């Protein structure tokens, strides 16, 4: 399985990534699922002016690699790509791209959602929200941990 992990400051180009994945697929994969996370202009009822994303070079990529390996153990996947941006991001900016190809759509959907859920809880990133009343560092939410733990329960 092709597994690609990139942590970058620049915006990603979905067209380029999509085309590159298709070129790798050949006739084997029947399903491609893409997830893009976009910076919202609010969190709950509060306005958000932007985000700052920080990572730990090496460890961050390894933490994503573990997530992709887990997904690949669980589902029949042909190709996975995770691109995660770091640095200063504004509302409407793309923050993360997860691309998954598989022979069957059920595997592609489940693996893509699994990867996103684990990125929220297990990937080594730190996120600071810029709000009108100041900055605040945010962590995974209780809902994020529930979603992740749901997968763990499924696996038993």
């Amino acid at each position: 399985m092709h597994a690609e992990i990139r942590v970058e400051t620049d915006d990603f180009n979905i067209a380029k990534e999509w085309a590159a994945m298709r070129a790798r697929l050949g006739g084997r994969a029947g399903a491609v699922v893409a997830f893009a996370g976009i910076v919202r202009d609010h969190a709950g009822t509060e306005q958000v002016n932007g985000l700052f994303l920080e990572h730990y070079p090496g460890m961050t990529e390894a933490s994503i690699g573990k997530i992709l390996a887990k997904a690949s153990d669980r589902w029949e996947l042909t190709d996975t790509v995770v691109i995660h941006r770091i640095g200063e991001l504004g509302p409407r900016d793309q923050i993360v791209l997860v691309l998954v190809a598989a022979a069957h759509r059920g595997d592609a959907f489940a693996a893509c959602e699994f990867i996103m859920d684990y990125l929220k809880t297990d990937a080594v990133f730190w996120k600071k929200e810029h709000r009108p009343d100041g900055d605040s560092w945010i962590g995974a939410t209780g809902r994020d941990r529930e979603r992740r733990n749901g997968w763990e329960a499924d696996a038993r």
Partner: protein
Amino acid sequence: MNSAASTVVTVRFFGSLRETVGRDAVDLDVDDACIAGVRKRLASLLSADELQALSGQGVRVCVNQTIARGNVEVRAGDEVAFLPPVTGG
């Protein structure tokens, strides 16, 4: 743990902890070559509040990018990192 000769390690701080201690990284010569020794040495550099933040809820310590469970040993050249709770995506 073992009290060894001069052991210089690099200590790194991330996210909110980087802001709290006001620096990215610092090289420390630790007397006691373990995580407790690193903390003891940090006590001479940081305020009590800053030091306490490093033991805050959800903070993890890594040695050479691997999570350290308990008071593991450190060696010269090791990279010790303090990681507050993470979130990506």
